[in-house]
Each structure stands twice: as C-alpha cells, then as structure tokens.
C-alpha cells in the first residue's frame, strides 16, 4: 500500500540530511516548527542576524519599529516563565504588540479546546503564534488551522527549535566553527525535546554528538555503546556507555535537567543515584578539553544533573545562554514576520546600489 511516488521535495529513503547548501532566506518561510527542514545556510543566517539583535538588546533604548503593527500571541499550555518572557521581550523590542494567552489542556472537551482557541485567535488578525504545548505535534496541528506564522516554543517530547538555535549561537560565539567538534549531551533523551533538537542542530552544523544517560531514558531500539544509523533520523549519534566516555575530550558538555517525574515513573531509582552516575561535576568536567564549554538549557537542578561548582564555574556559559535567548528569538520573529522578508532585489553580494 505504500505509495511509491514521493511527496514533493521528500526523500523516501529516510536519510538524515546534512544539507550544506547555502541558500539564504529562499522561499518565504511561514513557520518555525523544527530545525530539521532548515538548511545550514538558513541557520547561519539566523545566527548572524541574532548577532545584530544581540547588540540592540544591549542598548539603552531597546526598541525598533521593525515589527510595528504586528500582533504576536504567545499561547502557552505549559508553564514557563523564562521562555515566555524572552519571547515577549523579543517581540516588544521589535516593536510588535505581544499578547500572552495562558491556556489549559485539562479543559472540558479535549481537542475542541485547542482547535476552538486557535480559530478564535485566527478570527482576530494575528501575525504570529508562539506555541508551547505538552503534546508532540501540537504546533503542526495548529499551523494547519491558522494563517499566522507558528513558532514552536516546545512541543511535548518532540522539539524546541529556538532553544537549539540559542545553544548553537552560544557555542558559535565561544568556539566558532562547530564542524568536527565534539558535543556531549548528558541527560534524559527519551522525554527531552531539548535533547532531540540539540542533537539535530549540532549534527547539522557538522559536530559529532555523543549522549550519555540511563538506559531507561533512551528508546528501546537504541543500544548504549553504539552509533546510530541514518534510518533513525539521528545518524551518527554516539551512545556512550557511561558519562566519562561521553565527556572525554568534549568541546561542549551540555547537562540536561532531570525531572522528578522520571523517578516517579520508575525510570530511575532516585535522583541521588542519577547524580552519582551522570551528574556533571568538576571531576567529570576535567575530562573534557581545556576551554570546553559547560551548558544547560535551564532551569538547573543544582546538585542533581549539575554541581553548583561547575554551574557557576569558569567554563559555564549558562548565563550567556539566557542572554542570547532574546536575541535569537528576535531573529526568528523578524525572519518570519517582517514584511517581504524573502525577496532580494539586486542580490546580496553585489551592491546595494538601489537601496539608499
């Protein structure tokens, strides 16, 4: 029953694509749902743009008219102060009107609520919907029912693309070209959208990614001590046997938050055991390369997945990640909502002769 004709632009073999084409802002991109369909060139453009945005966030007057008259709604079905605030700030610095909507998933009739909420918002002219939802795929569903641009601020266990962009931005600003660098991600992979998105993001930029976590927190079909094939969608990902193996000679060590729910669901005997066996502390950090970065998407459980010493130590760039969040989200919102963003008159390499 499989239809042998491929959908437009899709590759039926399921290979992961490390597409190195340098197209810049080619087709008007309407949504940012995940990083998997951004080319390396597009990612680099967003990161370049974020540099410009970062400078603006450092000014006394943090306001530009770029998205003036645009309406951005943050639609969060999960609590998250920091992510929501950074999106709100990003939109406001760009001059947009930002409205925050908090919604609940435990409403009267399940799906009706989400669909009706989106349709109601659709009736008011909005330009962008920044969505965080506990169900994987929710932003994809929403994008099918609205004309607004949808930005995925985290969907279930699936993806958190803006987090990965700011992680890439942070690494790039500290280390430069990521090709061939070793990234170690330690923590819950099965349930973590940050892990999934970061793996894809760093692999796309040419880095070698290794993960380490309890066997209960990776999919059953993955085996510790192996390297994944392309058919998994994460081709090249190394699964370390233990955390020491993962961080050894790493250029970046990313510690992920481990949640109490994992212990409650029986995946871990205790958070203390997790900390003993996988916690990133000074001794483990010492196995990484000199000058290796220590990262964490936040909020941190100090003493569990990361010791206080390294969390606030010299190698930690956690605060930088937080600062970069607004700039990266500004770049994303601008890329999606700025009018006529896609057309290039006169080309970008040759001169701006027709601009001034």
């Amino acid at each position, binding site marked *: *029953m*499989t*239809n042998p004709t*491929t*959908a437009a632009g*899709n*590759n*039926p*073999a*399921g*290979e*992961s*694509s490390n597409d190195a084409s340098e197209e810049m802002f080619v087709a008007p991109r309407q*949504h940012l*749902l*995940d990083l*998997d*369909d951004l080319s390396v060139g597009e990612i680099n453009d967003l990161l370049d743009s974020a540099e410009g945005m970062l400078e603006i966030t450092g000014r006394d007057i943090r306001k530009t008219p770029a998205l003036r008259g645009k309406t951005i709604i943050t639609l969060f079905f999960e609590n998250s102060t920091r992510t929501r605030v950074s999106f709100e700030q990003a939109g406001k610095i760009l001059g947009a009107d930002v409205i925050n909507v908090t919604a609940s998933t435990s409403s009267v*009739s*399940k*799906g*009706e609520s*989400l*669909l009706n909420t989106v349709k109601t918002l659709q009736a008011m002219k909005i330009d962008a919907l920044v969505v965080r*939802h*506990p*169900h*994987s*795929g*929710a932003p*994809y*569903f929403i*994008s*099918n029912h609205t004309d607004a641009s949808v930005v995925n601020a985290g*969907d*279930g*266990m*699936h*993806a958190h693309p803006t987090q990965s962009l700011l992680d890439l931005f942070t690494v790039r600003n500290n280390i430069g070209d990521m090709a061939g660098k070793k990234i170690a991600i330690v923590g819950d992979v099965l349930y973590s*959208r940050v892990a*999934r998105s970061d793996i894809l993001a760093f692999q796309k930029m040419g880095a070698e990614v290794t993960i380490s976590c309890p066997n209960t927190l990776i*999919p*059953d*079909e*993955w085996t510790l001590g192996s390297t994944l094939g392309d*058919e*998994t*969608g994460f081709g090249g990902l190394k699964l370390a046997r233990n955390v020491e193996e993962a961080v050894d000679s790493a250029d970046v060590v990313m510690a992920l938050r481990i949640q109490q729910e994992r212990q409650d*669901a029986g995946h871990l005997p205790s958070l203390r055991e997790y900390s003993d066996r996988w916690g990133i502390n000074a001794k483990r950090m010492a196995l990484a390369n000199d000058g290796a970065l220590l990262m964490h998407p936040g909020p941190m459980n100090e003493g569990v997945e990361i010791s206080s010493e390294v969390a606030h130590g010299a190698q930690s760039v956690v605060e930088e990640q937080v600062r970069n969040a607004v700039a990266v989200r500004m770049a994303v919102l601008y890329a999606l909502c700025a009018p006529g963003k896609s057309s290039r008159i006169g080309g970008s390499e040759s001169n701006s002769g027709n601009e001034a």
Partner: protein
Amino acid sequence: MAARKLAITGGRVIDPAQGIDRIADVLISNGKIDEVTAGTTGSAPDGYEHIDASGKIVSPGFVDLHTHLRDPGQEWKETIVTGTRAAAFGGFTTISAMPNTDPVQDSAAVVDDVMRRSAADGLIRVLPIGAISIGQKGKQLAPMGELANSGVIGFSDDGNPVTDANLMRQALSYSVELGLPIINHAEDKKIGAGGVMSAGTVATRLGLAGVPAEAETAMVARDLNLAALTKARLHIPHISTAGSLIALRTAKESGVDVTAEVTPHHLTLSDEWVYGLKGVVPTTVGPEAYDTNTKVNPPLRSRADVEAVIDAVSEGLIDIIATDHAPHAATDKVCTYNEAAHGINVLETAFSSVFQLVDAGKISVVRLIESLTSGPATILRKDIGSLKKGFSADVVVIDPGSKWIVNPEQFESKSVNSPLAGVELTGRVVTTIYQGETVFDLSDVVASAGAKQ
C-alpha cells in the same frame, strides 16, 4: 419482498466453503441460494432478474466479527442504520456488534434492544457480542448465560483488556459449557505505559510516546496459556505483531482451541503512515505529520510486523480478517495526536485495501475471500458465509479491475476517520445482496452522487 428471483451470471464464483472456484451462475429465489451452476449460460432463466457478472468475482457476502456500531450511546459517530449501510457498501452482509456501547451490552435487556432495532432498521445482519465483565470494568463477570440466551456469538470487553488474570481465567472457564469464544483485547497497558503509537524509529523521531509490541505479545501469551488451562475457546482480536504469532503457532500446534483475526489496516499500513505521507518516510517532518487518522489500538506496527501478519493470514495461521470498524467524530480526531481517540473507519475500504495484497502476490484471492466468508462463519458456527443451497442469499459482486479513489466525505458511515483519503485502490465491491435483496449497487451511487446525510 423475498419472492424475487435473481440470476447472477458469468462471474468467477469463489465459494471457499464448498471449494468452488469457477465461472458459473448463482441462482437465487425467495431470499435463498438455489444453486451454483456448473458453468455459465451467460443469460438468466425466464422470470429471473439478471445481473451480468462477467469479468467480475462473485463471492458470499462478507462476514465481520468485529464492528463498533456506537449505538446505543454515541450516535453522533455512527448508528445501526449508518453502520449497516456502510457495511453493505463494503460488501459485508453480516457484522458483529461489539458491546462497548453506552449502556454496555452486559445484560439481556440491552442486547435484546440492539437486536430488535437492528432487525427493524439495519440494512444487513447484525449479530451481538456480549461483554465479558459488567460495564466492561474488568471486575465481575457479566451474566454470560443470559447473554448467550439472547444470541451473543461471543464475549468481549473490547477496547479494554481484562487485566485481572484471574477474571480472564474464570471467564474462559465459565464460557466452556456455553461453547462461545472469549475475545480479549490483548494489551498490557503497563508495558504500553501511555504510548500513542507503535514504539520505534517513527515514534522516536516524532517525539510520541511509543507502545512496544511486547505490550500485545505479553498478554496474548497469558491468554493462550489460560485457554490451554481451561480448554476454552479463545478468539484473539486484531492480532498485529510477529511476537504474538510465534505464541499463536505454538498454541495451535499443541491443540489449544484458539482462532485469531487481523484487521485490514494492520495488513496494509505501517507506523510510517503517521508521517502523513501515505507511508513515505520524509527527511523532514512536515505539517501533514501526526495524522490522527492513523491513531488506532493496537497501533499501526513496523513494516516487519506487517509482513509477518500478511504471511500468517495467507498461510492460515491467522484465521480471518475482521475490520474493527471504529468510527469517530471530528471532535475526537481534529486535535493533537495525544488527544485523538483510537480508531479507524474501515467497513467501506476493507475489501479493496486488502485486495491490493492479491495484486502484489502476497495472498491468493481465494484465501482472501475465505478469510472474509467461510472463515468467520466457521468461528461463528452459523450457516452463512457460503453459497450453499438453502443458505441466505448473501452475495457480493466484485469488480477486480475497478480503480477508485477513497473519499471519506462520500462514505455512508457518519464518520470520516480514514487514513486512506485520496489513496487510489484497485478492486471494488459493486453489488451487495442480502437475503436476496440488493442492498448496495455502485451504479446507483454513481448516478445519484448526492452528499451523504
């Protein structure tokens, strides 16, 4: 109404119960089969209405052991009227109504009411299935003797598994003297742990919680062992994994009285359909992914499991095909994957979808028809599913070359939750006759082409 005389001539008549596979005529009168002739004259005898079936296949009407009519209780999804119409369109002349209605069919009162209304309003034959436990809550046995008297053909708590092994053992044991099968939805929900699709590469990429195959195989193994212990009849619904088949084979070889069914979707769709591209695996996930029309229980499995169940039904290890027709309204499907209800709308696409396997050489057309007619009839121990003289004239005419594109908006079913929308299929039921009367004719549908409902 039953006085009609009908001759269906010149078709390839396939009646596995009688070992018939030849060009012949089928003669019907008074609602019963009179004869399957030795050859064809190409014309009808005097006084007979004539259906010219040359180039077509003529088979007994299909028999479904697993249908969710949603009536009583959820009539916005389907009713006895719309469900039996959908069945007729799909070539089914007998369906078996699962008891997970509201109220549950766990008492004679409810079953009798469903039977009365089916006889009055249903377009084709509806057989009742009784609940295993009261309210399907899995705590206390339902009054199985009383239900047997009302005519149930078996007992099931579908879509809940009987999680208490002791209750399952008692149900099997109690059913022995009634001679009716226990049909347990085999799913260990603890192993499944909240998964919404099959565990595997697709689930990992999409970030959806996965149900491992072992959630089914573990309980199938338990049920087979209990059936052996109690010497009862066990019928395994919607079997879907290679692991379950291993246990099934061993059990059959050692004499356990077990039969098994597989659904059309588990024979033809894999977990890759959740990407929303009709089974194509994309390099990047797009907005068509998380297609809730693929959400079903048991979930669509890996391609390896699909191949295994195809081989098993072809070989006969899996006895029959049953639809598990599960209509759902838009509110239960137009939502996130996690929120969506489990179930696929099957009756009107069942035959055509599995017919693709015949073209692909995976199963013979005779075996296919057997799995839809004499196979189920044998499990039911009823005189249906065959063109034997004196049997109810339930006949289906199939055009094996007809190409059509599935359009759920045109379904007779009240619901449209099929993942096959837009898929082109080859092979189609063109006429369905029940008790000698035509209950579906494709040429009428094509002529009127009106919007349903």
